[in-house]
């Protein structure tokens, strides 16, 4: 039994002008995430990967299909049911600069999801201290404002906020793409450490196969609103079957001049074969 089950998910956005045809961005997506597991969701811009995450979070209304969490339907929940679900499902967004309220202290940002769940202020304060420790931020961070932190540290605050209610699933929408290389690696280690400690599951959305391969148990590849391939991380990233996944893999440059030269040749040969 899986934790999150998405069946035949369809999402359409209204057309630009009045009476224009709605624009369907997801054409029936099926995926599931097991407890304690990371499902990596890879796709390029326009593939609809972010929309899947937003549908799971209740920020976008599906036009068809079902989303169940723990065998309960989570589409179209009212505020109260959504608040209950928030204990189990949380989010980390891409941009650590706009995902934290600039005028709230880090302590208030972390305590908010707890207080909304009815935790009293004292307990929330204790939990905030544990959370800061868990994501490797100093204790005095709670009195400070987000703007005093670097991108990597802000993303740690965002991770701590997601962890606050001890969720079972975190939707991570490109959580390391805005970070510098060295910071990116440390934040990814943090994600993996936390998963090992708490058994939280991740729906990990990214455009970067390299990142996804390191954090995911299974990987799904999305192309213009359709899942083209799903499999174990090793299978999808080493031995892709779908031509689009192959193309994606060959397009990612390797940080090694000799190997990159070889990959470039391989890619050209592949594209020539496809065209011919």
């Amino acid at each position, binding site marked *: 039994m899986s934790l999150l089950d998405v069946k035949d998910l369809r999402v359409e956005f209204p057309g630009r002008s009045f009476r224009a045809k709605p624009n369907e961005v997801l054409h029936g997506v099926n995926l599931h995430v097991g407890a304690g597991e990371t499902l990596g969701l890879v796709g390029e811009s326009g593939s609809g990967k972010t929309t899947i995450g937003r549908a799971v979070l209740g920020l976008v209304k599906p036009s068809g299909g079902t989303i169940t969490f723990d065998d309960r339907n989570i589409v179209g929940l009212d505020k109260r049911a959504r608040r209950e679900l928030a204990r189990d499902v*949380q989010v980390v967004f891409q941009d650590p600069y706009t995902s934290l309220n600039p005028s709230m202290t880090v302590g208030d940002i972390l305590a908010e999801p707890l207080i909304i769940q009815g935790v009293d202020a004292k307990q929330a304060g204790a939990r905030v201290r544990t959370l800061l420790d868990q994501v490797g931020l100093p204790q005095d961070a709670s009195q400070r404002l987000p703007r005093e932190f670097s991108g990597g540290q802000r993303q740690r605050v965002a991770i701590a906020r997601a962890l606050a209610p001890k969720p079972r699933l975190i939707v991570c929408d490109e959580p390391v793409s805005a970070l510098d290389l060295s910071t990116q690696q440390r934040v990814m280690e943090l994600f993996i450490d936390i998963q090992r400690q708490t058994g939280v599951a991740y729906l990990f959305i990214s455009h970067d196969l390299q990142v996804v391969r390191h954090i995911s148990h299974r990987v799904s590849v999305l192309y213009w609103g359709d899942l083209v391939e799903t499999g174990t991380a090793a299978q999808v990233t080493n031995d892709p079957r779908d031509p689009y996944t192959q193309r994606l893999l060959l397009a990612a440059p390797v940080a090694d001049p000799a190997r990159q030269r070889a990959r470039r040749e391989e890619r050209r040969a592949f594209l020539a074969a496809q065209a011919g």
Partner: protein
Amino acid sequence: MSKLASSSKEMSAVSDTTAQGGHGPAARTSTFKKLLRDPQFVITASILVLVVLAGIFAGVLSHHGPNDAELSAINAPMGTDGHPLGGDESGRDIFSRLLHSINTAVISALIGAGVAVVVGVVAGLIGGYFGKVTRATTEWIFNLVMTFPGILVLIILMPVTGGDYRATMLVFGVLLSPGIFRIVRNLVLGVKNELYVDAARVSGLGDLRILARHVLFVIRGPIIIQTAFLCGSAIAVQSGLAFLGVGSLSTPSFGAMISSGFRNLYVVPTQFLWPSLSLGVMTACLVLMGNSLRDVLEGGQPRPLKMGAGQRSAQDAATSELAADESALLQVRNLGIAYAAAAGGANEVVRGVNLRVARGKVLGLVGESGSGKSQTAFATLGVLPNAALVTRGSILFDGRELLGLSDAQMRPLRGKEIAYIPQEPMSNLDPSYKVGSQLVEGTRKALGVSKAEAKQRVLALLDRVGIMDPQRTFDSYPHQISGGMAQRVLIAGAVASRPRLLIADEPTTALDVTVQAEILDLLRDLQEELGMAVLIVTHNFGVVADICDDIAVMNKGVIVEQGTAEQIFANPQDEYTKMLLGSILDEDKVREDPPVVAGAAGGAIEGGAA
């Protein structure tokens, strides 16, 4: 847990040293403290407090009632016993009336501005936050209110308000509310799609709580500022109405006093002076206080910097200990670039950079954010923002010194000899002109050819950069083409003049990985074809490995290592380079540990959190 703790130490050590300039402890100073440091705010606020206190203690400061008439005091001059400012035409004590008028003014301001703020903010939040229909409805209502002629409505409504200035101010507050409504609605529209509002929704926060905590709290600054101006406006209108004689005659008011002073202008000119002075001081203080509030609450945000208006150099003669290298196409020696620091003094972001781009070779300038790599590239193009100052060094292009050249001297080089490709292709195309006409204009300027010939060249180039239907792209507006296509268009524009040096600032960062591979292929082919040198600024080692002959690694304004690509990847010497290369995710590693399934019994997740 121990592993986490050690990684956290590393983290804070790194972040401490890379802390970005302006966001030091200075940013911590609370708004209130900053206000107290602003003399204009301190003076105006103190005057207002004194005035309000004088109004509150009117009964103590003056023994006369505002409407007590004494026959002996009619038009009494200043300094008459018991009447420090004299008496008016009806024998009422001017000083006492002045004090009580303050109260009228303050109450008017509180009611008028209060109603405007409450109505405007509530409607603005609702109109901005909720759906289209709600927004359209509230907008329509407030637009209607705005069309009412304010003072006229107040006079017409006199029978309804019964001449009581408080009721009048209530109505006036509603008439003022569209101003606040519009400000709030626009701010809410900007804030409601921020990710932190989404995060709050995911947490299950109700709309009311989101509006209060995440929307209203963030936009409070402009509302506070506007309130100060509204107070002044309410006082002025109340006085104006009283001056016209509209409303109750028994209410002491600056307007009524000025009116009576006017009638006695030739008898006792000072009667007119006192209320006018008080009214002027109060409204002026409110406006000036609003201005200082604006400076403190909204100031401190970086102003958009003007690019390319000629960068400034500290000295005219370029200096460097390093000998000029004739074989290099571009040689940067000991370059220093500084910005004014918040605490005074200069903050050097580029500190003595030495770079060498050989003819026909590709140099990758690699570094993390804030390393100064883009600043170095901008200096070469001569387009540093005005706030920047080149403190030292030399930039030799083909043996010619670029530093100290005026914008006019730089222009023939830029675009012809030295071309540029930006990171964001879309923001570098003017949305209101067709792609083709923008390219033709640039080509004509660079090459001095006729319009028809330039068009021919541009079409050929668009074909060359791999655009399927050049004529169609030529006739498209920028919003009609994709990001990858836009980058191809800009590359076409950049190579039109067959430049000898191409500077590319993160040319593929904004693009999808499949598009990135195509653009890199294109750049490589063009580079070989034209034999041009390329300086490519990037943070991506994959891009570097793909296209660069040489690499320079930059950290905190200094080049820590420079060498051939093979050399640096295979055998890095500098610690920072080693750290960066070590951070690259290993190609061959996949995650192998199985999912952790917590506690078989109950399935609740408890571990690690406590």
